[in-house]
């Protein structure tokens, strides 16, 4: 019953999770760590369709993949975390890539909301039948 609403809900959920991950990546784009430690690792949501032998049952996050732990070395001798040579480790995150995937996630979320409205009006009409 009302299966299509749950499917659309899972679509909204995965796109929101994706936006959360991207926000986290952008928020940490300048996070420095000592060279002896791992850099901040970008989060990538792995989406996977849920199959039920029929039309399917939505989408789920199969896992979160992490980006490069090596990052890149930045010369910043003023930084409190800098090593003997004045280097710190920063994440290897491409801001342009993050921003464009953010737009994709946003559009995906909007597409799901638009579909949710249509599905809801169909069910609404169905429960009014015979009145």
């Amino acid at each position: 019953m009302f299966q299509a609403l749950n499917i659309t809900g899972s679509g909204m959920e995965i796109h929101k999770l994706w936006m959360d991950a991207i926000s986290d990546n952008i928020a940490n784009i300048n996070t420095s760590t000592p060279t002896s430690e791992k850099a901040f690792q970008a989060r990538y949501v792995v989406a996977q369709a849920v199959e039920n032998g029929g039309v399917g049952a939505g989408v789920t996050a199969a896992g979160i993949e992490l980006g490069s732990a090596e990052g890149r070395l930045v010369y910043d001798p003023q930084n409190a975390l800098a090593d003997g040579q004045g280097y710190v480790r920063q994440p290897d995150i491409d801001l342009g890539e993050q921003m464009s995937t953010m737009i994709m996630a946003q559009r995906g979320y909007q597409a799901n909301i638009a579909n949710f409205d249509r599905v809801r009006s169909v069910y609404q009409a169905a429960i009014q039948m015979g009145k």
Partner: protein
Amino acid sequence: MLNDVTISALQAAMHGLSARQSAISQDISNVNTPYYRARNVTFEGDLKRALSAGENPLNVKPTISYSPVEGGLTGNNVNLDAETVASVQTEMSFELALRATSDRFSLLNTAIRG
């Protein structure tokens, strides 16, 4: 009499349209899922055949097929424009079928009440 072929046929159509609406929702919710294949639901042909052969339309099951279109960069072949158009068409067809069912019932209602 309350379960005539008109109502059964409309019910089968609504069942098929509802499955199609779910498939469209599935496609849209997976619009960014890598390697996802879009699916189509068909039932009209089978329903027509069942009706002309005088079979019970309620035995018609919707058929699910996968879109053969080549996927894009991520191997996903969902076409959001096509899905949106299909979603609106399905919504309207469903409301049409609902309307027809309601009218059929109100006809019966008139017959009962006089």
